[in-house]
């Protein structure tokens, strides 16, 4: 009885996957959907991947000489940035890893190593 009901119900349910995708349109929304799903759950990103992506974000910062960027560099002492640049880099990292870093924590992140450490310990980083 229950199984008959179940199959009857299932036969009438249509999940409009294709529709939502075309409605959403752009590739961008598709990509972000996939990303947010992968962030959910057990496959936490590896430290190597975090290091790689943090360094990429820092290297792509316009004022930074990419050849100077290494996992242990200090944004201001080693890369010649100022505190406003520091804010911009931390904001860029927030976007890269889909995080929101509270002001108190963000003020402390002044080097690649601290950024890597913070993101590595963050359960929602993706």
């Amino acid at each position: 009885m229950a199984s008959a009901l179940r199959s009857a119900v299932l036969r009438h349910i249509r999940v409009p996957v294709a529709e939502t995708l075309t409605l959403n349109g752009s590739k961008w929304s598709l990509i972000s959907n996939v990303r947010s799903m992968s962030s959910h759950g057990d496959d936490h990103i590896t430290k190597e991947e975090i290091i790689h992506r943090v360094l990429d974000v820092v290297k792509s910062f316009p004022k930074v000489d990419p050849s100077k960027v290494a996992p242990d560099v200090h944004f201001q002492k080693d890369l010649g940035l100022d505190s406003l640049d520091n804010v911009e880099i931390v904001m860029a990292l927030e976007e890269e890893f889909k995080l929101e870093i509270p002001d108190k924590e963000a003020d402390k992140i002044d080097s690649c190593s601290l950024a890597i450490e913070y993101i590595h310990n963050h359960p929602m980083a993706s």
Partner: protein
Amino acid sequence: MGASTGAKLSGMQKQVLGLYRGFLRAARTKSPEERRQIESIVSAEFRRNSKLVDRKNFIYIEYLLRRGKKQLDQLSSPATVGLSYLNVDYPQTRKS
């Protein structure tokens, strides 16, 4: 005086950086073109003041912080789509 380049931040510096962060966050909620526009205006304004304003001119910095917070409140409203900038010079207010 220039933006800080290390060492420990004072309470006032933290407030300024917090305000800057607030503007960048508000910019994220706007359309991509507006966002770029807002970011460039805001960044230019903070950098300009970081060079022009004497770091010991606390009263003036307090004033700028208050003014900035009000502007940020307006920008944060969903009704505000963008930011435009009027270049007015106030030579009097610069000096302490």
